[in-house]
């Protein structure tokens, strides 16, 4: 049974990430409020995944800071990581372990107490209808099932911050509904959620504010109404139109 989360604020200040001469993130600053669901949109190669990987401590920033409340991800990575649940774009799992073994292993390395771990795994498998797959090798599961297992692994330690990179990519409609419900349940718990997606409907439905990133820079940050204004779009314009207008401007004016 998942309990309500303590609220955590995420602050990103002047974050730059270079890969050699390539500037993947260019002086990015964002504040994501406690319990907020924050959407991250951008074309392919815009820097979304780099931002999320830096945020969860997989990549080291070239400069700038990332803090969860007062905890700096670079200075205190272990403390920060124990607060974060991360789902990569293409999660690769240990295919030679059973579903149960994989989740037990992940729970253990995320320091979940033994008493809670069993209960948490059972509850999660039940809510994702995977109970009959607990002794199946992860390698034998379908793509949708693997995605569900990865989501369970992401939240086993009841993280205070969720970082989800394209959680709905290439899933069938039934699994998409399960995943959307799961995101909804996490946000109800008050978990601060950062959601990168190409699915504009999902961003519009779940995210309070949305950042649009292009060429490593934040082009715009606001709620959907604010973004419409920035893009000089109609008041009933869909997020897709807003997104295209804003990223088009950026492409024409890359210096901004």
């Amino acid at each position: 049974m998942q309990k309500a989360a303590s609220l955590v604020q995420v602050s990103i200040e002047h974050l730059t990430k270079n890969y050699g001469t390539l500037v993947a993130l260019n002086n990015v600053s964002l504040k994501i409020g406690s319990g907020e669901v924050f959407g991250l949109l951008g074309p392919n190669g815009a820097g979304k995944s780099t931002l999320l990987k830096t945020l969860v401590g997989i990549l080291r920033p070239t400069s700038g800071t990332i803090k969860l409340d007062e905890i700096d991800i670079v200075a205190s990575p272990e403390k920060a990581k124990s607060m974060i649940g991360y789902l990569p774009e293409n999660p690769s799992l240990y295919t030679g372990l059973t579903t149960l073994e994989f989740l037990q292993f992940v729970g253990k390395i995320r320091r979940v107490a033994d008493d809670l771990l069993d209960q948490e795994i059972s509850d999660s498998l039940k809510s994702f209808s995977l109970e009959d797959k607990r002794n199946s090798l992860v390698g034998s599961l379908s793509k949708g099932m693997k995605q569900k297992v990865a989501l369970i692994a992401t939240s086993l330690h009841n993280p205070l911050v969720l970082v989800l990179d394209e959680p709905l990519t290439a899933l069938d409609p039934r699994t998409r509904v399960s995943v959307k419900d799961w995101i909804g349940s996490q946000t109800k718990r008050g978990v601060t959620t950062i959601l990168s997606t190409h699915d504009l409907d999902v961003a519009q439905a779940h995210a309070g504010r949305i950042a649009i990133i292009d060429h490593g820079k934040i082009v715009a940050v606001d709620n959907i109404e604010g973004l419409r204004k920035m893009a000089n779009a109609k008041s009933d314009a869909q997020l897709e139109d807003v997104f295209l207008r804003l990223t088009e401007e950026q492409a024409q004016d890359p210096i901004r």
Partner: protein
Amino acid sequence: MSLGTVGVLVRYWIKGRFTRATIASLAVGEAFSVIFVLFGSSTYLSFSNKVGLTTGLSEVAGSLILALYIVGLIQSGFNGSGLPVSSSDVDYVFTSPVPPRDVFSAKVLLNSLTTILFGFPPILVLYLRFSSYYHTGALVAVLAGTVTLMFFVIGLLLSADITLSLGRGIGERKKLLRNFFIILVLVISLLPITLLIPEVPGTVAEAARILPNGLAATISVGLVSGSPGTINYLLDLALLSAWLAGFLILGIRLSRGHFYEVLEVAVPGVEKFDKPDQTSRLNPRGRSLWSVVRAKERILIGRTREARALFINAMFLSGFLIIYALSGSFQSSPTSFLFILFIIGSFGSGTASRWIEKERLWILKSSPVSMRRYVKEVFRARIAPLLFYLAPVTIAVGVPLVLSQLGQPSLLLGVVLALPGALEIAGITMAGGMYFASKYGQSSNDDILSSQAQELADIRRFLFQTVINLIIVSPVIVLVLVSQNLATSVGSDSLPELAAGLVLASIVFTAFSINLLLNRAGDAVRRREDL
């Protein structure tokens, strides 16, 4: 069949498969094969000379070795891997209007060409070694090599035919016939084993001579050893050609229809498991985090091909070292102890490379565990099975050596240091392998794996790894080399103390080196950014 289409397919498969980096990597592999063949053939010749093996027995031994190749290919044929295909073949070639027979022909042609191209150098070296021993000349070695390569192509065709025969278009009666034929081939191929049973007449083993492996061994070994009988060779060659033609015609007939559904698609990095459901046996309750990490690693080793590969390699190593020991090479030169060090020790780096897969690092790197400690626990879990296999081999080789050197205390010290030294080197090279895998290891199911970047990374890793490992293990080797001088200078009275002191120093050095390498490996994982 359209020769143009076959040509186009072969040309683009070659373009896709043989990048400059692949060729460099294959060249390194070829060089190692040649070295291995030279070692193996010299050991065999020394052994056969010592125990007085006749050419006939060598032919039978050759026939048996080739029979093992056939057994392997029959197995892969039944697994659907007789015609290797990739997922891009399925996506682009199988969905194109190219007739299946053209695809079959192109696949067979490509596989035969690559087998001939890469099999020829080591095989030629093998027969050149034999022909120089028997003074039969280089031309004979080339002829013998050609015949052996012809046998390899026959094996490929047999495997392909078996895979094609798995299709639904083949009736039950024909499948029964096929199975009967395969069983017959297997039984006859392995008949030379009966030579080990004293009561069985030698003519039983001769029956294998009608099969491709028996024919190829008879012709090749006979030619390089200078056995007379030109007419017999011609008859044998004609029969071998008949096998080749038979399997080729059969394959062309079987590939008339749609056979794609029986082919097993090779997906790099994706393990196949016999049973999708297993008993979960991690049981983390009450166990420490690190004990769970080690248990997870042991489960993965046990369920994947790794454990099987380790076991087969250890068996192969045991056989090779025992033959080497019996050949008397160890006794003839004290520095040949180094051979034990190299052969046993090199196992460490070979088994290390599989420990990491880049795409799963997100699980570890987004968790609060210490990477240094994690790598050390993985090492502990992985070194245990390695030592489990290597220690008995070392003891099996070591005990006769120690007994044979009892009368020469100065040589005995070298043996005493070399045997634990072999296991120490295995440990160091495994830690070194883990360090380089941490730094350069790539994803195994990424498309990039088969691209130039991955191959170049592998070559770079392999070269760095070999050089660095050699530097790190050199003190252990030097200790063995100077042991005779040390033993002579201290005298036989102080030899036990000297031996104990040197073994202790060697173990302390090994522990220090392994710790250093694993710390570096942990740091390399922590710093990796190409995820």
